[in-house]
């Protein structure tokens, strides 16, 4: 019964979204207040109906209702409760429902908190957001209905893919979707502004918090996914340049570019046309991401195996929204003339450089991701584009970005002198070079990437701190002034430092990792680098829905025991699939990562040990970036600008 109600609520939400698309749009065009006012209750209703449908599906998973096809395919009565809940979105249909739930959530947020927007702009924004909802409701209802019943329910389900039975699934997709779909809000603002024919500083101010929020969610989502892959896939990789990872990375790059360029729109009334284009493209890329995951066109570990019908449907959605918005843009872009005047060297030009680097690096990722398709379709060459290509083609952009970032961040608006901006950074530069030199001297015959990463990290972090300090002026009470600086300044410092720290982690793991593969005999210790590994024994264990072989390993260094490690390998009985559960000894300097393999015929067990230096800084850096974003979101002048409404998330991103 609840299932049918959920299905019905979804259909109702579809119709509400249709109303939300057309009535406010006509109202805004004709200037009819009452028609524009429909948008707000419609957005609320759409959200509540979708939330009900989502709740109904979740209930079916929790109660293991095997009369639902989706539950049969992705659940099992013996599965732990956490994975029954997160299993709701661990499949194609359920994740689409989550997607559309977030679309409607953002629409409702804009309706609830956007009361200080001009009424016509607000009506148009909600109308565009409604249209996105319509498309995805239709997609779910016509091609991927999660509420399909079975006439003859089986006795039990087929279980969820074991790799997904991890707390990672509970958080990684929702955060990613909040990010992807958050960009739909920026898109709606961009299209509404084009319809309105007016892009000004105020528009920049409204759009920034949404972009920033989407970017924060994407940052967290990507970092969680990377961490999950790191500990779950069993060999300690953190980024694979997989098509689906790229699909989330491209919107991240573009949204980072977008909230930087929105600063220029707001403060200097320039770069407007480019910012609108970025807003359209950023959401376009998040739709492309959906297309890549759902169509099965590009093979990837993430792909929900799929039929082409869905791919075509999403391609149509993609074509309609991005194509439509771009056509609108082509007609209206010329009306947006820049007003600000600034020199070749200025904060504006620095932000433009940031945008060029981010957008072109995104383009490189895009071309690399799509090239196998292009090559096969047009050149009849079946080829692969993998990590070696991306590492080579993408990394230079990040190196240049890291190199110019501290200088660009110090430049004043309008007209700057490069000398004056570099002067306070001179010690930081020398010190960073010295540290990198030291690191380079200490390593022997390894890649130059390590020292480069260390240099960039030191340079960016010190640059960010110097930039923050430079805002406190001279004389007494600098500390007090530091504490009273706008949160946006703190956000900028944190986010930029975070980027530097992530670069440090990436440099560490890629250049100084080492590994050991061998057959370990029980009771015979051996050395891996500075560490000693001792296999004490191996035992069997029966989990709720799997069988495990658990090794007991003592990790020590110089006779001192560091930790007892228990790497596992599991067999999931229903899914008939083995997984590895690595044991990791974490600390800030390095991770020791141990995986147990098969028992050998000649006795002993295969054991793999990896030592991965500086790994955790990758995720600490991501966390700092997200935290910096949150600081900026809560900046005082935007809370003031938002009036008494505290929850209105108007903000300044890290500039």
């Amino acid at each position, binding site marked *: 019964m609840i299932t049918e109600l959920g299905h019905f609520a979804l259909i109702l939400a579809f119709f509400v979204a249709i109303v939300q698309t057309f009535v406010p749009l006509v109202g805004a065009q004709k200037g009819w207040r009452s028609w524009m006012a429909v948008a707000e209750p419609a957005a609320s209703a759409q959200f509540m109906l979708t939330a009900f449908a989502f709740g109904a599906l979740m209930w079916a998973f929790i109660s293991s209702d095997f009369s639902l096809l989706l539950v049969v395919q992705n659940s099992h009565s013996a599965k732990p409760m956490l994975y029954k809940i997160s299993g709701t979105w661990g499949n194609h249909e359920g994740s689409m429902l989550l997607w559309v739930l977030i679309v409607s959530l953002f629409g409702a947020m804009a309706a609830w908190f956007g009361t200080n927007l001009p009424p016509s702009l607000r009506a148009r924004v909600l109308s565009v957001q409604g249209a996105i909802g319509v498309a995805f409701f239709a997609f779910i209802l016509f091609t991927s209905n999660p509420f399909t019943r079975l006439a003859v329910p089986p006795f039990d389900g087929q279980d969820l893919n074991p790799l997904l039975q991890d707390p990672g699934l509970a958080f990684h997709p929702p955060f990613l979707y909040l990010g992807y779909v958050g960009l739909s809000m920026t898109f709606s603002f961009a299209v509404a502004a084009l319809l309105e024919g007016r892009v000004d500083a105020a528009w920049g101010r409204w759009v920034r918090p949404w972009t920033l929020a989407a970017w924060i969610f994407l940052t967290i989502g990507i970092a969680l996914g990377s961490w999950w892959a790191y500990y779950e896939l069993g060999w300690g990789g953190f980024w694979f340049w997989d098509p689906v990872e790229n699909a989330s990375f491209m919107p991240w790059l573009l949204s980072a570019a977008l909230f930087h360029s929105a600063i220029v729109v707001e403060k200097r009334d320039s770069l407007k046309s480019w910012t609108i284009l970025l807003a359209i493209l950023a959401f376009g890329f998040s739709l492309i991401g959906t297309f890549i995951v759902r169509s099965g066109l590009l093979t990837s570990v993430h792909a929900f195996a799929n039929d082409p019908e869905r791919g075509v449907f999403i391609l149509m959605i993609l074509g309609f929204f991005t194509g439509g918005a771009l056509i609108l843009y082509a007609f209206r872009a010329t009306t947006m003339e820049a007003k600000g005047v600034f020199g070749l060297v200025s904060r504006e030009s620095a932000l433009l450089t940031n945008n060029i680097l981010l957008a072109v690096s995104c383009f490189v990722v895009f071309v690399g991701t799509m090239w196998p398709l292009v090559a096969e379709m047009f050149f009849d060459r079946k080829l692969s584009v*993998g990590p070696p290509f991306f590492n080579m083609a993408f990394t230079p952009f990040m190196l240049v970005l890291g190199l110019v970032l501290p200088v660009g961040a110090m430049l004043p608006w309008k007209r700057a002198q490069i000398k004056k901006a570099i002067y306070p950074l001179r010690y930081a530069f020398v010190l960073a070079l010295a540290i990198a030199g030291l690191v380079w001297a200490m390593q022997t015959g390894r890649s130059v990437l390590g020292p480069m990463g260390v240099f960039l990290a030191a340079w960016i972090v010190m640059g960010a701190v110097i930039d923050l300090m430079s805002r406190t002026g001279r004389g007494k009470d600098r500390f007090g002034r530091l504490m009273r600086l706008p949160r946006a300044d703190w956000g900028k410092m944190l986010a930029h430092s975070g980027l530097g720290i992530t670069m440090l982690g990436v440099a560490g793991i890629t250049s100084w990792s080492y590994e050991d*593969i061998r057959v370990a005999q029980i009771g015979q210790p051996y050395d891996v680098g500075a560490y000693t590994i001792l296999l004490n024994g191996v035992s069997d264990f029966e989990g709720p829905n799997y*069988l495990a072989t658990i090794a007991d390993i003592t990790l020590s260094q110089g006779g001192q025991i560091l930790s007892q490690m228990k790497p596992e390998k599991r067999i999931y009985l229903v899914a008939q699939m083995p997984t590895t559960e690595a044991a990791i000894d974490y600390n800030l300097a390095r991770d020791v990562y141990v995986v147990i*393999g098969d028992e050998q015929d000649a006795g002993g067990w295969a054991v793999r040990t990896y030592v991965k230096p500086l790994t955790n800084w990758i995720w600490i850096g991501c966390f700092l970036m997200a935290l910096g974003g949150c600081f900026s979101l809560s900046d005082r002048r935007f809370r003031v600008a938002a009036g008494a409404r505290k929850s209105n998330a108007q903000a300044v991103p890290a500039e």
Partner: protein
Amino acid sequence: MKRLVFILMLIASPLWAVEPDEILDDPELEARARVISKGLRCLVCQNESIDESHASLARDLRLLVRERLVVGDSNDQTVEFIVERYGEYVLLQPRASGSTLVLWAAGPLMLLLAAGMGFIYLRGRSSATEGSDAALTDVEKTRLREILDSNS
């Protein structure tokens, strides 16, 4: 139960990539083999190199790579040997030849284009004259006055 585990482990594919018995005695050759396997795609997997993959085909390829190295082939010869049998698809880093040149050139070309456009835009901005500050409409001016008045 234990027997069941054992049977299941036999059915299941090996859990991880490079197995101890594959490793060559000569550490130098082994290091080269690892470098080569990181650049070769596991043909039955999804975007994994043979160095990372658990699949049995990947294992066969790893052994093949090592076989060639032991015979005395150079890295390039080994890769060439495998490409001849499995096609260009096996390379994770496509060769810069023919139409693939477009792939390699796309990034640098786009950067040049973007930098050029950015420069033209910046020059236009720096030589433009500051527009009047009449960016505010009358309504906005009134509103601004209200805000300023209410604050003072």
